[in-house]
């Protein structure tokens, strides 16, 4: 599990504009509901804000998803699941960290079992600050992500491949064992 299964260098010519356009317009999302942030998702999905306007729909499994939302604090136990879900997603894939907790620990800044910076373990493409961010902020984040994808700036998945060993080292410092 600790060997990078994919080539770490991606040839640039494959990364075409049309694919970026398609990825941008059809973001299928899996939301990893770790904390209170999940409560902000229903208004985003339903008729008040309706994210399906932009082609964003919730998916049941990471195999089908392009976008992962980590909604809330990340406990050390949860991190392994998040990493697993992230690795099961197919490239290109994007991560949005939701709320203050994945940024700097939030109100759990001094907790012994909470990850302070999610970015150390999986590449995060976009943060939404706030505790909690309101649905408007989430919608804005989606739009920002779409813009980033279009400009080729949302390339966390490339970072993950390139610095796979470093990410793994950080993760294994937390996990002790991978396979349980």
């Amino acid at each position, binding site marked *: 599990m600790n060997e990078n299964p994919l080539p770490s260098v991606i040839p640039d010519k494959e990364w075409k504009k049309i694919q970026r356009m398609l990825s941008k317009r059809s973001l299928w999302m899996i939301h*990893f509901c770790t904390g209170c942030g999940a409560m902000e998702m229903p208004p985003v999905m339903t008729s008040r804000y309706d994210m399906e306007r932009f082609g964003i729909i919730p998916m049941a499994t990471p195999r089908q998803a392009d976008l992962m939302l980590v909604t809330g604090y990340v406990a050390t136990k949860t991190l*392994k699941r*998040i990493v*697993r879900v992230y690795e*099961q997603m197919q490239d290109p894939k994007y991560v949005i960290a939701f709320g203050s907790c994945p940024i700097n620990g939030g109100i759990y800044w001094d907790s012994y079992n909470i990850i302070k910076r999610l970015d150390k373990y999986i590449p995060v493409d976009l943060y939404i600050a706030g505790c909690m961010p309101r649905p408007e902020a989430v919608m804005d984040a989606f739009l920002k992500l779409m813009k980033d994808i279009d400009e080729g700036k949302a390339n966390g998945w490339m970072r993950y491949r390139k610095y796979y060993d470093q990410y793994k080292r950080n993760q294994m410092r937390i996990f002790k064992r991978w*396979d349980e």
Partner: protein
Amino acid sequence: MDALTLFGIFILLPLVGALLSYFGRKYAPIIALIFVAITGIFLYVWYGNFGSYTVDIGVKLNLTFDITTWFFMLMINTVIFSSLLFAVSADLKNAGGFSTLMLLGFTGANGVLLSRDFLSLYLFWELMSWSVYVLILRTSGEYARRYLLFGVLSAYFIIMGIGIIYYYTGSFLYEDALSGVIPYYAWAWILVFLILGFGVKMAIIPLHVWAPYAYSSEQPFVSFLSGGLSKLGTFGIYMSMYSIAGVGILDSFGTFRGVSLLGYPFALLGAITAFVGTILAIFQDDIRKLLAYSSIGQLGYVMVGLGLGTSLALGGALFHAFNHAFFKSLLFLGAGAVIYRTGKYKISEMGGLGYRMPFTFLFVLFAIFGLAGIPLTSGFISKWMLYEAAIEKKFVIIAPLMLIASVGAFLYSYRILYGIFLGGLKEEHKKVKEAPAPMLAAMFILMLPLLIFSIVPGWILGWINDVLTNTGLKPIDYTQFTYYSSIGGANMATFWIAFMVLFFVAVAIFIMKRARVVNQYDNYFAGEAPSSVALHAAHNYYKPLKDTWAPMLKYSVDRAYEKFSKFFVDGFYEIKKIYTGNPQDYAAYLGIAFLIFLIIGWWLL
């Protein structure tokens, strides 16, 4: 060719083989295989070389080698050949005895197919029946007893039918039965007895109870029993209805839209058998029992065709019997290969073996296509003929029963595929190897006809047409690649070309991107990944369906028979109580009996 050559090649040669292979020890199946192959070569050489020979040994006996015999011999020969080929590497205990009994059964089958008189028919039938009994006995006495009970019942039925014919004609020859001396009400009894007698072999409900037990014996034998010998029932019913009696007699009972009123109830029984067999097969977890019930269901289809008796229906029945011989033998051999490698019978205890045994998986998959009637195999064409035969006559009870039974067939087919070959591979099966080469060869031989006759159905339909015209029935409507009923038709050449082209379209889209193979434990379990536990959802697979069917499933023919026998056992136990051992009681019985006789005598006088 004369009578002796015919007798020598098809009867004596296998008998010699049976004798020789008994001493063959480990190589017994190979010796048996050689003898079967020789018979097979003569079968190939003598195609078209048909003739009828009468031997007079006090009573007249008749051996006939015609297209009907040839057609059935072809499937029985192929099936026993592959069964023995499978047995070569199956490490059976006492392989010599096994091969001997198989060849005895084969001799019996050949005899039944060759004979055109009731005496030799009965003799060879018993030879076949008893060798099957001993073969089942090798596995379990209990299973063999159940088979024996119904085997004897079948023999009694047949003997009753024969007895009535002999009473009227004084001859055992088939052709003498049609001389007009038998009144039509006697024909009703004769036909019912013969159909029921042969129907036991085809495991028609309610005479199917032996099948799930008998089919749980050694797989090479079961493949021969289910694929080969059960076709003797088909042959017997076909001959007794359409050759011995003939359409004229059948129609004299009155007709219902061109179908004899004697045949219709049996067609209905066949449709019910197809439905019930399928439903019961869905709920089996033991692979052998599942295939046994499936076999019951599939032979129900054949019975429908035999009962309806139009050319299309009979053609469908013969074709379906042919297909069933191949795909069901293949399935039993595939199950045998899996059981040989894992030593397990329960579907839910296996899983993922398709990755370890890819060729076995492909062969079984193909057999399942045939079973489910996917048009990629000839299994579809026979089912199509049976459906159209029922629909063009507007039989609104038979047709839906058959159609829904074939949907049910998808359910248990998938249970076999998923439970055994797909899903998670268990740790203990990580080292399982592919089946030995002889087993694969045996399965490959059985797969070929299913594929070939799907592409060119005209070849086999030609033989079936010859069988029908030889029996004096109307020919079926077909060309090399197409087949028709009065309401529709299909062209297999178009189908295959279209399928190939569209499959390449799909492949072209598919190969544009490469895919990476991941570990089987790398699955989505909501982020959880139990890395050494194979989660396989095969246990009690159709539980919701079973729950909804529970009120119906509590009725069972099997248990009805058991209650029936228990009633008699209890009854005899009660009767036994009158033997008290007290002389005074016996004296009293004597007195009472005397009184009763006195009163009856008084009343009579």
